[in-house]
């Protein structure tokens, strides 16, 4: 069984790429697009779960491409860490694609292909143990991302997409330069062959160039500014997909390199600690000042990256476990919150806190999903955020980093504050009368395929709004105007809420199953604290 799975490891990359390629020639509106797209993502999830089960006991699955001897070949490795992250990445992809189908975005040309190629690239980046191959897979992830931005940006807004492409290209080029330098010093870019090479200053600096490039991709302070601007005008579902995949793959690689190459070397880990602490504080502070829901959430995401990196900076078994738990939690909850923001933006045409209001009484399901995800992100029990934050704080206190532990708690309070702002303004606030007009304008823009922000004739919008009000029938009984129980008019369609509900449900599940999650993460971190098994398996010893 294990032998067969080892042989099939490259399929995690090959199959999505191949199917994505085939789907390019399937006609645009053919049902096969969505069926095959969803089917392959689910198959990827299934495969990832099989990997997780097989590697749970510490087994390391290795496939040397073309069966070259270890150390020379390009190795594909699945251990408990990469399998766990692959499972969560597959879940996020499935649910984001589900949202794209529900919102009709999957009808744009080649979306299924692009999502599949992206998923294939992610699988490759998580499974490969060769740094140059990793660069290739990062590019494989990025190219379809550019396509997704091109097809699904908020109609016509390309400035942010250009920013995304240039920043990522710069980071990739830097990463490639780092790989070249590592090769110059060590004569190999096989991660296992580089084990412990961080003791050599030249290698350490070359590797640090790679880590710097990954820091840009993971949006770590002080190179975090591009994220909110670039993701802010992508299609919301795409932002959710990217936030679950791109930044987290970069963080995954930081974990991997820190453990294999640096073996938790003190000075480097202190540097990561400083950067991580600044990232989480800056992210949370900037989020407080944002006026739109999506940038606010995206800066929360920056802050979360800091939390995850604290885990690797501590480099104790508890710290790594906590960091991995936080990574899993963050991928799920951030996806959920961004999909909630998507549903709001795509219905009301605006994510501004001061324009959309009164969702609490009108959208009970969306409100439930938001409350769960927001409390989970802030770290309240019984959701996954509590388990994750408790673990990180405890690990930092155990490692003697009391200041960091205190900072984590303060930052959590700041996060709660900025999410309370969303709650107070968008969900609990009094519904303005012009919200209906806003939603009507957005419906007209979607129908006519106009640019976002295109000006709609006032009368047309008013007529559309009045029509929506009538469609939902007269109010029950006599209601004063502005009555919160007046449920006529625009509602967020249920199909847009379901994906967010699924993810927030998962967050509840992970909260109650915290013991299980911690156990998974403990197994995952064991391959990071002791890399001898990994190195031995990859080198074929």
């Amino acid at each position, binding site marked *: 069984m294990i032998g067969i799975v080892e042989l099939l490891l490259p399929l995690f990359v090959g199959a999505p790429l191949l199917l994505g390629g085939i789907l390019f020639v399937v006609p645009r509106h053919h049902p096969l697009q969505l069926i095959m797209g969803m089917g392959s993502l689910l198959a990827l999830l299934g495969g990832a779960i099989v990997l997780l089960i097989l590697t749970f006991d510490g087994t390391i699955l290795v496939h040397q491409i073309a069966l070259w001897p270890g150390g020379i070949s390009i190795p594909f490795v699945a251990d408990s860490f990469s399998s766990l992250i692959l499972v969560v990445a597959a879940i996020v992809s499935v649910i984001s694609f589900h949202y794209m189908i529900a919102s009709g975005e999957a009808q744009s040309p080649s979306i299924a292909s692009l999502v599949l190629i992206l998923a294939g690239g992610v699988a490759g980046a998580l499974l490969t143990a060769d740094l140059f191959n990793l660069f290739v897979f990062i590019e494989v992830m990025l190219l379809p991302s550019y396509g997704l931005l091109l097809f699904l940006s908020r109609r016509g*807004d390309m*400035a942010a997409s250009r920013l995304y492409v240039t920043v990522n290209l710069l980071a990739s080029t830097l990463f490639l330069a780092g790989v*070249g330098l590592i*090769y110059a010093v060590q004569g190999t870019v096989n991660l296992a062959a580089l084990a412990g090479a961080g003791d050599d200053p030249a290698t350490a600096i070359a590797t640090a160039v790679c880590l710097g490039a990954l820091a840009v991709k993971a949006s770590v302070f002080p190179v975090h500014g591009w994220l909110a601007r670039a993701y802010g005008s992508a299609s919301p579902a795409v932002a959710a997909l990217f936030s679950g995949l791109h930044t987290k793959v970069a963080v995954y690689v930081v974990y991997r390199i820190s453990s294999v190459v640096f073996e938790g070397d003190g000075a480097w880990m202190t540097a990561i600690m400083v950067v991580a602490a600044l990232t989480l504080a800056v992210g949370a502070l900037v989020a407080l000042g944002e006026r739109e829901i999506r940038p606010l959430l995206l800066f929360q995401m920056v802050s979360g990256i800091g939390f995850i990196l604290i885990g690797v900076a501590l480099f104790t078994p508890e710290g790594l476990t906590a960091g991995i738990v936080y990574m899993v939690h963050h991928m799920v909850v951030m996806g959920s919150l961004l999909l909630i923001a998507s549903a709001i933006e795509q219905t009301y045409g605006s994510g501004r806190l001061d324009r959309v209001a009164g969702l609490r009484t009108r959208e009970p399901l969306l409100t439930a999903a938001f409350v769960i995800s927001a409390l989970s992100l802030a770290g309240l029990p019984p959701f996954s955020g509590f388990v994750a934050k408790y673990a990180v704080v405890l690990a930092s206190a155990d490692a003697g980093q009391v200041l960091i532990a205190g900072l984590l708690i303060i930052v959590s309070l700041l996060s709660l504050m900025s999410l309370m702002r969303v709650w107070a303004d968008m969900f609990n606030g009094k519904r303005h009368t012009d919200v209906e007009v806003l939603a009507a304008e957005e419906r007209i823009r979607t129908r006519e395929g106009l640019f976002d922000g295109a000006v709609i004739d006032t009368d047309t919008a008013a007529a559309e709004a009045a029509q929506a009000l009538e469609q939902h029938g007269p109010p029950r009984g006599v209601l004063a105007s502005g009555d919160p129980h007046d449920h006529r008019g625009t509602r967020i369609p249920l199909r847009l809420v379901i994906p967010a509900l699924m993810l927030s449900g998962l967050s509840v599940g992970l909260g109650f199953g915290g013991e299980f999650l911690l156990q998974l993460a403990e197994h995952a971190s064991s391959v990071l604290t002791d890399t001898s098994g990994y190195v031995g398996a990859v080198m074929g010893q």
Partner: protein
Amino acid sequence: MSLALSIGVLAAAGVFLVLQRGMIRIILGFVLLTHAVNLLIIAAGGVSRRDAPFFGGDTSQAADPLPQAFVLTAIVIAFAITVVLATFAVVGRRDDDTEADNGAPSQSEVDDGELDALRDSEPDSELESEGERR
């Protein structure tokens, strides 16, 4: 030494161009930057102490094929991405804020042919007024 100098010059020129306004210059900047990195990888193979793999006979001094394979891959990827970047330069609404702010565009930007290409593809009132001003 000449390799190191070329890498330095290419990287400096690339960084300079990437920091310019105007998407076309940024694209050219990235082309130069990737060239610099490709040369860096070639240099990583130890070109100064190795010879051509043929005609010599001493295989221990033969050129290292691995960096060349790396560079080949990197060139293909860079080429694909340059095409994507060029696409980003021309599609979408005229919202490219990487160009000069209000007022007449500088002469060099007109030379890019970017504005002309855009005007051909998208007759836009904003553009026309800009043309008249010029």
